């Protein structure tokens, strides 16, 4: 298939094409990302359970009293706190390691803009998706990249919130800061966690319950999605993959001197290694 002939929005496929595409698997997430995702999920589960159990004073409490009482009776407040801080520290260290070793692939600003930066398609997508939900439009959704707009929003929230949660957690855990700073740190810690939890509602539903996104859920286990799903839901990313495949084929075949069109099709993008992930997706 000639890259030039790849349309900007997905074309309607034949049934045969669809069946064929459904059989093929493309790598969406690096195994490191898969591991990090579940590590994060586990940490959040423990931290939320312990954290909600710790804030027991009536004025500050988020979880209901029966919960905080149950947790403190079962484990003791001091042990809850010790676990919360210990796991928190492990979490920070793991992320720092990822941040150091994976800086080029995950944290570099070019990568961030490319993977989770919102473009015009994303804003359109958000508008149309909301209206679709309310059954107030019949427009088609614009094509999305490696991550759709909703996933990008959640990613942005998490990227903003996690450093806040980590830093404020450190301020509270290490008793070297002035009390006013500690008080604000607690406030920010709770608000940031609250924001992530709201985002988490959507993320968990979309990832685990919403049927259309089932392949996405499995991709967080296997790292792979089928090509039809990619074509339908992440067309711009599918397009990039296709172009790379074509370039790769061309490399193997050798350059065609008279085929100037082919050369001009050399992707201006940095050559992406086979299977290298864009970022941790939804």
């Amino acid at each position, binding site marked *: 298939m000639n890259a030039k002939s790849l349309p900007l929005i997905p074309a309607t496929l034949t049934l045969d094409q669809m069946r064929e595409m*459904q059989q093929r698997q493309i790598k969406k997430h690096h195994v490191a990302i898969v591991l990090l995702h579940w590590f994060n999920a586990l940490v959040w589960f423990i931290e939320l359970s312990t954290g909600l159990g*710790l*804030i*027991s*004073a*009536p*004025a*500050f409490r*988020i979880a209901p009293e029966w919960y905080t009482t149950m947790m*403190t009776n079962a484990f003791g*407040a*001091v042990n809850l*706190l010790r676990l919360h801080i210990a796991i928190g520290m492990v979490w920070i260290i793991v992320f720092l390691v990822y941040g150091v070793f994976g800086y080029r692939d995950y944290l570099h600003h070019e990568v961030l803009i490319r993977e989770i930066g919102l473009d015009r398609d994303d804003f359109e997508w958000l508008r149309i998706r909301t209206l679709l*939900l309310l059954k107030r439009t019949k427009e088609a959704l614009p094509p999305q990249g490696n991550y759709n707009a909703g996933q990008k929003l959640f990613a942005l929230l998490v990227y903003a919130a996690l450093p806040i949660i980590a830093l404020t957690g450190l301020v*509270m*855990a*290490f*008793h*070297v*800061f*002035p*009390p*006013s700073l*500690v*008080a*604000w*740190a*607690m*406030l920010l810690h*709770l*608000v940031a966690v*609250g*924001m992530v*939890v*709201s*985002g988490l*509602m*959507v993320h*968990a*539903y979309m990832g685990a*319950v*919403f*049927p*259309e996104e*089932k*392949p996405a859920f499995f991709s967080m286990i296997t790292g792979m999605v089928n090509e039809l*799903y990619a074509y339908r839901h992440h067309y711009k990313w599918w397009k990039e993959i296709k172009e790379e495949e074509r370039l790769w084929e061309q490399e193997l075949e050798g350059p065609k001197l008279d085929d100037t069109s082919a050369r001009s099709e050399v992707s201006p993008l940095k050559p992406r290694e086979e299977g290298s992930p864009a970022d941790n997706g939804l």
Partner: protein
Amino acid sequence: MARYAMVIDTERCVGCQSCTVACKSEWDVPEGFARTRVRQTGVRGTYPKLMTTFHVSQCNNCDKPTCVPACPTGSTHQAEDGTVRVNRQLCIGCGSCVAACPYGARFVNPVIGRVDKCDFCSPRLQAGVQPACVETCPAKAKIFGNLEDRSSDVYRLVYREGAVRSETSGLRIGPNVYYAGKEEMLELEMSSFLPGEPRTVPAAWVWTALAKKFVYLAVGATFLGQAVAFFHQLSSGEKQFEE
């Protein structure tokens, strides 16, 4: 179990600060801070009819403390013997309780980064020993005991001899440090050192008044949103991906 209380006999007290130093020594209180302190009222009257006296204050281990509900981590708590204690392992040092105390009895200890205050020497009480300040006072001006023990000196001083509390019409939280002495001197002392207002630190106010509601709203709304979508999905039976 017990209801510990202290009575300060102003007639006896000479303002020598032995209690302050004994306490500092016992509990490693850093310079510039004190768990118990002695202040002098100004000199009242005109020469030569003058009056002055001393006011010893510390945490009152109140019946209805304003500091306990102010503590977000539950580290500040009221024990069964009435003493209000700070669990250092839970305290994060946010200072909410410091602002909430109308007697200014608490402080954030800069050495340990946590809140510190008098707790009637709880560890000593558990070992059957008097609080350090009571033990050392040369004038024997600090009387300590269990108000539930009818034969105790504190019972007599409080319930039979009318020892007074540092309270105002607007603040009656049951402080358990009482004051005894000559009426005129007590009046001078109490009026010179009135309790203040319990306050909330700005961060805590923002949380309880605004942010908590906002978080509940956000989480609730997203949860509801997803619940609606879920039911919508069930009812309308969204097209499965493979058809």
